């Protein structure tokens, strides 16, 4: 499939021919300089490995307290979903909901979504749910805010350290590792390759004539 396809810049809409890139190469828009796409090496394998690690870290991060606080012998600890639940019970269901979605649900959607897409692809399977699943993963990414959440944890630790003994828990280290692993997973993922594989295996006879360069003439 080495035909010249067309690509439209997502920032300025300039229509240009897709350059053939070497592994690790990056295509920039010739008008506005936005990154059109990057070709990643072994994208499926690498991303899959990182997403597996992310799944383990996410499980640890949510099973153990993120922070433990001690004031005069009284101890409290907090897990992410507990924090959201306490906000809900305090009469702030909306804030609790936002926190629960951005720090728990959407990161989970990212991890489970990528696993359920990349694992079958790696095994050469293409069940029907892959296309809507990958679309959901791609569209919900901005709402997964693990890194913002962890910065919030750090700020609260400093605020509390004036009045109590605060101990970072296992959950916190797991979450820090999760930030790094998730960020690397997104940066080694080549969505174009995933889409191409999904397209090639769609096999319903819709040859991509309409996006081939020759058809403009």
């Amino acid at each position, binding site marked *: 499939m080495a035909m010249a396809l067309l690509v439209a810049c997502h920032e300025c809409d300039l229509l240009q021919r897709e350059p053939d890139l070497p592994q690790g190469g990056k295509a920039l828009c010739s008008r506005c300089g*936005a990154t059109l796409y990057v070709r990643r090496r072994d994208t499926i394998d690498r991303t899959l490995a990182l997403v597996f690690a992310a799944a383990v870290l996410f499980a640890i991060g949510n099973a153990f307290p993120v922070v433990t606080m001690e004031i005069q012998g009284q101890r409290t600890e907090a897990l992410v979903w507990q924090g959201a639940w306490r*906000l809900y019970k305090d009469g702030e269901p909306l804030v609790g909901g936002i926190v629960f979605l951005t720090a728990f649900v959407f990161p989970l959607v990212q991890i489970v979504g990528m696993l359920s897409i990349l694992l079958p692809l790696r095994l050469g399977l293409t069940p029907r749910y892959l296309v809507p699943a990958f679309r959901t993963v791609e569209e919900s990414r901005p709402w997964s805010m693990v890194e913002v959440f962890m910065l919030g944890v750090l700020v609260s630790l400093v605020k509390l350290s004036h009045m109590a003994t605060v101990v970072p828990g296992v959950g916190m280290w797991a979450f820090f590792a999760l930030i790094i692993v998730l960020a690397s997973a997104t940066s080694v993922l080549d969505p174009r390759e995933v889409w191409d594989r999904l397209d090639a295996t769609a096999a319903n006879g819709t040859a991509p004539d309409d996006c081939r360069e020759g058809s403009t003439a």
Partner: protein
Amino acid sequence: MSVPTAARLGFLSCHVCERVTRAVTGAAAPKCPRCGARLHSRKPSSVARTWALLIAAAILYVPANAQPVMITTSLFGTQRDTILSGVAYLWQSGSWPLATLVFVASVVVPLLKLLALGYLAASVHYRSRRNVLGRSRLFRVLEFVGRWSMLDVFVVMVLAALVKLQSLANIQAGPGAMWFGIVVVLTMLASMSFDPRLIWDSVGEDDGRQAGAI
């Protein structure tokens, strides 16, 4: 010749998977043949939606800053903290790098986002052709920084979850936290509904008209 954009040449590019498809005239609500997402040359009523969300965010920004985001009850009484008084407290307790961080994330970024997106939407409305590249870059920055404003909501959440010591001290989220959370979500939705390709649409437009005239 005018600048060859997908829209001018009759192509649609998918906003999810970026596949380019030839536009079929008269076809209602075309869908991407690859990923099934709805296709449109430009995001539908992009500028109007951006304005609506921005105005809503700007209105709610007032209670978000005026009302307390955090209510602390302790042996010494009740203390109501707004976002700014929280920053002031951090500054006074000597953690000025952190105070700066919280100030930037919860005051500078939302304000900047409201103003800058408003400017971008207005510049598109008036088909400005000035500093196109700069405006395009501005949008890229806005998209990236917006989510960090959620910082203060998370801080309140962690503090409210931890400080629950019946007699000694109790921290609760205040109504300001809700308004602030909504403001951040609205500004994120605003930047998502803005279509950066509109910034470039005025470029090379006149060239086309001139070519037609000659």
